[in-house]
């Protein structure tokens, strides 16, 4: 096992943790917006 690899793996894991954190926060925010009264999932035609 070379010493450099552990460092690279750690950097990768930190980046990945950042990405997931961001995605989870985004998820929560969107959920909050969707739960607001008045949000209606139209999903239908373009008018």
């Amino acid at each position, binding site marked *: 096992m070379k010493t450099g690899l552990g460092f690279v793996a750690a950097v990768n894991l930190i980046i990945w943790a950042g990405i997931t954190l961001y995605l989870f926060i985004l998820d929560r925010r*969107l959920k909050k917006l969707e739960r607001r009264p008045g949000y209606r999932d139209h999903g*239908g035609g373009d*008018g």
Partner: protein
Amino acid sequence: MIYKILLTIWMNLIIAAVFLYIEPAAGFPGEVSRILFFHVPMAWVATLAFLLSMIASSVYLITRKVNADFLAQSSAELGFLFCFLATVTGSIFAKATWGSFWNWDPRQTSIVMLLMIYGAYFVLRSAVADHEKRRVFAGVYSILAFCTVPFLVFIVPRITNSLHPEDTLNPAKPGMDIKTLIFFLGSLCAYTGLFVWMLRLKVRMLRIMDKERGRINFHK
């Protein structure tokens, strides 16, 4: 929610294993072969995203449901992101093995084409004010662009020979040992899962933004 947590853990595992558990593949200088576990899944997700975007565009043109266009747009944007990342990782690999970041390898040529096509796609989207027209034009353009792709397959290999390691690092061929194969496929799954997650977030975001713009719904 469960699948998102599982995905997070799974990705952690993959990253750790790729650097600390897997042996580097033979025939490549130093540790460069480890990029395979990131580069190939990115390229795969980009392909998947562009294909999905094309299909969603066609569905929009047939049914005129806005949701199909939201999917097409999100998929194109994510495809562009992953395509860009694949280009960067590919370039790093090229530098480490062949000594230059860019040498117009057929793979690099076609990926630049894709980036150009989707760059133009976003320019077109931003240039049309009317929302429905924008969706139709974007759909038409992506189908038209898709029709030019087969020509690249014909033409590009005639110009230069590829250095891209397909035969040396092809999971379908028996050259790869079983441990590498498992983590390679695992990484592929993880990236696809990540793509699906991001895609759903993006679609929900577009839907809320569309609502916020005060679109009036006549079909109450």
